């Protein structure tokens, strides 16, 4: 699992850690039962306040994404299946909509443009064969 933080992102750092762990669970790079790095190790690696990592782990535990065993550490729980994937996709969509609005486009225009672009992308490799 690779956790990437972006300081110019509007989300608080703990939220970014939460989102990255969720992503890793959905993508399967963090399988059920896999251990997460200790608070100490992750804080040192990311150069963030240990309290920030603790807050992220607390949040993940509350959401059922991870569980902790006293004295053993924190582990990935069984992935929430489609629900978790949908949550993540919703975040991606919201970010795209915000970006589109910045340039004055409405969500339905964005959706159409995405389908067009995806269609083009799908046809490009076949025309090159």
């Amino acid at each position, binding site marked *: 699992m690779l956790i990437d*933080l972006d300081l110019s*992102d*509007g989300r*608080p750092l703990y939220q970014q850690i939460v989102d990255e762990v969720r992503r890793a669970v959905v993508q399967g790079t963090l399988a059920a039962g896999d251990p997460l790095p200790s608070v100490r190790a992750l*804080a040192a690696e990311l150069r*963030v306040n*240990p309290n*920030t990592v603790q807050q992220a782990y607390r949040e993940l535990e509350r959401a059922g994404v991870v569980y902790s065993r006293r004295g053993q550490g924190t582990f990935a729980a069984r992935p929430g299946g489609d629900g978790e994937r949908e949550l993540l996709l919703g975040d991606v969509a919201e970010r795209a909509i915000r970006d589109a*609005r*910045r340039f004055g486009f409405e969500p339905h225009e964005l959706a159409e443009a995405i389908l067009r672009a995806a269609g083009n992308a799908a046809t490009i490799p076949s025309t090159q064969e």
Partner: protein
Amino acid sequence: MGLSFLPTRVGDTPLAVETRGVEKRYGGGAAALAGLDLQVPEGAVYVLAGPNGAGKSTALKILLDLVRADRGEARVCGLPTTRRPALVRAQIGFVPEVVETAYGWLTAREFLAHHAAFYATWDAGYADALCQRLAVPLHARVESLSKGALRRMALVSALAHRPAVLLLDEPTDGLDPLAREEFCALLVEHLTTAPTTVLWSTHHVHEADRMADHVGVIQEGRLVMQAPRDTVSASLRRYRAQVPPAWTGAPGLNGDVLLREGAGREIAWTVWGPEREVASRLEAAGAVVRDALPLSLEEATLALLRAGREG
């Protein structure tokens, strides 16, 4: 001041460092501190940001009782700094902006041994490990050390007794980029092993961005704003919007605008307040809000300082 809408009190939480109405004037000059009310919660990493000459170093020296306030009171771990200075200093690790080399003829090793004698909780093993990590030239005379090496030695002397409160005055000044990285990593590791409150004074705010959980912005000897970092992150946005010709502004919003930028029909306002509310008030006044951009800690500090100067 016109910025009274900004928070300056941290709220009900045990404080490791507190000053109340501290004033200080050197000689006949302008006031270095003009009523400073610092509130650093226990366990916080508190970044005290401000330009040179804003009073940051004076504030730290008052906490150590190296400088006496003209008025007001300062407490560290609940202890008044002027009444129990020795006890207070035992609780503190201090990295000064300028490392004094009063014992320049000593080697770094001898200097640290001399320093260690003042601290009952000094951990010699930890000090050795820190010296190795930071490549402190232990056999060189203190007076021959570069600014960076002095800094690294000062850091060892500030950490090795695992103080309850760590006061850092521009701790990365004079360090090269690699040493800065190392400093930040070391600080994080220290925090995971020892419960410490950090008061980090700096004008390089971006270096503290990943670690800060509280922020104070100081200008001309008093705080423009003091709040948990998440409050700052959530409350400050730069709104970019298109406005109708001859737009006269948004009534009901004007009190919370920190900066007004933009040209013609495009505005970029930095506003303090809940995003939805601010955006809807701008929209109600005829503006079409394109986006509400979050600010990095450094951008936020700069905006607050600029507004403080103009306000």
